């Protein structure tokens, strides 16, 4: 057992209001630089929708992630032979059109335009060329099902839905959508790390954050192809690729990442998970139907004495183990089992989990009376959910509907329980049946409710102390520079020393 710690996340989709505050917070902190304008380390997508970059989930187009090969797995779009074959041009890359051409407006024209019959306008100009552009697309062009014929109707997750099922999703009375905020998954089996020919990408030992060393990056862009979530972006100005850094400078000083800190719906949770690194290959290579279960198996119980001993032996700090015990992510993912990874079939073992959205059931009109639900209750059975389970299964369980249903039933049980507590208008047997079906106690339901709705900042973000002193000692012998000025300089200052 090789116990390591991973900073993992849970996004509660029922709480997301699609305000993009997270995206803006991230952009303002990290990607408002030249060459990074089009990068959205954090973005919020509407589902059904094609996301950003368009159709990123379609690995037949982008060749991201891993594919099973014999008893193990291999990269779908990168690797030694494939890399050699395409050494002069990395194919399957998203091009700028697949993202969008970033633009701004000539605001100054509003003030300097000469007097005339028309209102002055601020024309859009490209942030890349500086020339006037016709805005054709943006990072969330399909927001709230905008442009459905072009975007939402080409959602990759429709692949298992029949034409009739797809069509019904776009009927005015049945239409539904939810949001899907995405950041880097800081995977346990990152394809980007595996694909980098320069070994510039690495996974930090202490918290599992995946980073690109800007000094080693040689612009191969293999990571852009390899990442199935398309969360590695190429900076055309610096000639280096960049990606979400999980705001590690903030984490190290005990603050939540900017996107999470700013989240209006408070949908985001962050905490430590302990996992067994020996099992990564086995988990990533297992059969598609076992992917979710075996991934959940890799995370260890932080209260287990054996795990704690092994973790200590492995150099995991005691404070990190304590953080793992308080981790909200552990509760959602392991204890309650109501959070699922996004697209586990990419086999990167992602560490960002989603509580699926419990969307309203189908409304109906009977005898001239409008019912908010086709069943007698507002929250009917999940079978009557507007969004087909198949669709959610395609997103979160590699197509396993039963697994999604189980999670949805748990969420539904919590709702029944809370409705009973606060309104008390439901039949007791119905509630008990819903609870016992998924093995949920009243205490657990209350706990889920509490962490979902009332959690404080410190409950949502349990950030392990950074222990920078230990990290530095791992790479530099600090005693060597004892008595000298500070700890020396990595790069000498420009004025010279």
């Amino acid at each position, binding site marked *: 057992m090789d116990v390591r710690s991973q900073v993992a996340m849970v996004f509660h989709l029922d709480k997301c209001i699609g305000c993009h505050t997270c995206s803006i917070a991230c952009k303002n902190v990290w990607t408002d630089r030249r060459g990074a304008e089009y990068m959205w380390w954090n973005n919020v997508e509407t589902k059904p929708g094609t996301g950003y*970059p*368009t*159709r990123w989930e*379609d690995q037949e*187009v*982008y*060749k991201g992630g891993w594919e099973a090969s014999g008893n193990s797995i291999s990269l779908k779009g990168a690797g030694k032979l494939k890399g050699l*074959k*395409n050494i002069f041009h990395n*194919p*399957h*890359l*998203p*091009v700028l*059109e*697949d993202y969008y051409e970033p633009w701004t407006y000539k605001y100054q024209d509003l003030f300097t335009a000469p007097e005339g019959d028309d209102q002055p306008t601020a024309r859009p100009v490209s942030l890349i060329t500086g020339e006037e552009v*016709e805005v*054709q*697309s943006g990072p969330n062009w399909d927001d709230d099902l905008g*442009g459905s014929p*072009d*975007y939402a109707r080409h959602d990759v997750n429709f692949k298992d839905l029949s034409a009739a099922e797809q069509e019904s999703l776009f009927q005015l009375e049945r239409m539904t959508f939810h949001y899907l905020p995405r950041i880097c998954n800081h995977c346990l089996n990152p394809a980007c790390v595996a694909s980098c020919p320069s070994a510039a990408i690495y996974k930090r030992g202490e918290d599992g954050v995946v980073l690109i060393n800007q000094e080693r990056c040689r612009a191969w862009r293999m990571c852009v192809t390899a990442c199935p979530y398309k969360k590695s972006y190429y900076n055309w100005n610096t000639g280096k690729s960049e990606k979400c850094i999980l705001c590690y400078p903030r984490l190290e000083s005990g603050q939540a990442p900017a996107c999470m800190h700013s989240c209006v719906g408070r949908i985001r949770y962050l905490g430590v998970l302990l996992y067994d690194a020996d099992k990564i290959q086995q988990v990533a290579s297992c059969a598609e139907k076992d992917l979710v279960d075996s991934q959940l198996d890799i995370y260890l119980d932080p209260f287990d004495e054996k795990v704690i001993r092994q973790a200590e032996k492995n150099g995991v700090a005691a404070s990190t183990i304590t953080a793992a015990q308080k981790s909200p992510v552990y509760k959602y993912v392991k204890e309650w089992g109501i959070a699922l990874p996004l697209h586990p079939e990419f086999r990167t073992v992602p560490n960002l989990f989603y509580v699926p959205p419990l969307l309203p059931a189908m409304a109906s009109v009977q005898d001239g009376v409008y019912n908010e639900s086709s069943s007698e209750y507002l929250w009917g059975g999940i079978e009557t959910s507007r969004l087909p389970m198949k669709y959610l299964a395609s997103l979160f369980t590699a197509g396993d509907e039963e697994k999604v249903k189980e999670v949805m039933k748990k969420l539904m049980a919590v709702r029944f329980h809370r409705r009973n507590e606060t309104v008390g208008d439901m039949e007791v047997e119905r509630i008990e049946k819903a609870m016992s079906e998924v093995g949920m106690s009243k205490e657990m339901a209350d706990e889920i409710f509490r962490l979902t709705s009332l959690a404080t900042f410190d409950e949502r973000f349990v950030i392990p102390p950074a222990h920078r002193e230990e990290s530095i000692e791992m790479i530099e012998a600090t005693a060597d520079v004892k008595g000298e000025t500070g700890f020396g300089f990595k790069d000498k200052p420009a004025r010279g020393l």
Partner: protein
Amino acid sequence: MMKEIMKTYRGRLLATLMLLSLVGTGLYGQDGEAIFKQNCAVCHKLGGGKFIGPDLVGINDRRDNAWLKSFISSSQTLIKGGDAEAIALFNEFNKLAMPDFPLPPADIDAILSYIGSQGSGSGSGAVAAAPAPEPDFTAEDVARGEELFTGQYELENGGPTCLSCHNVSAENVSGGGLLARDLTQAHQRLGGSNAIIGIISSTPFPAMANAYKDKPITETEVLQLTAFLKNAQENLSTEIPVVKSTVEVFWIGSGCGLVALLVIIQLLWGRRKKKAVKSDIFKRQISTN
């Protein structure tokens, strides 16, 4: 007048002197025989049938005098000008154009009258000399000829190597020049060793004549080279298959190579992402400009 001169001993002496002076200094001469031998005999016989060019016995009777004069001055101008008889001749003799002879009219007259003095073509075979027998060549001659042709052995007077302008498809000759004609089948084309000897020793081709003007090929060398060319011709018919012209090989090869390359490219890279995912969406959009 010419005939009178020719009949006298002094006249002949004078003609010989004039010929010598013509060779040495390029002065004009009036001795038809000398001029004929100098300029025409390499390709034309007087009696004895076709050689490189037609037999000229009785040419004065067969052709119009003015036509003959213009043909001698510049046969190529006539051919280009579309003269039917000139073209027929050109085609008959392997499309080997007769070089232009910008001789003064008096010299041409002298030649024609000399030809006239050699009898008429219609049957007077008395004048016709028996064709010279094919010389015998030894294997050494052939080997030495090859060495001379390829430049492994320098020509005695330092003339340029044949290979620099000519190609021969033979076993030990690789990649000869393409400036002048391929000589692989010269023996057959020109009609025997004697013709080759004639052409090499006193070439009618201006470029070649110029190249060897001050560096003549010796008689032995001429024989050896002829031996080599004869041998090349013989080997060609028996051993070496006829190689397609280089230009043909180039185009066919390029075509096949291109197709093979495209197939490989298709196999290696055919499945790559060819266009932006959104290009279809953009095509549908209505432009605001």
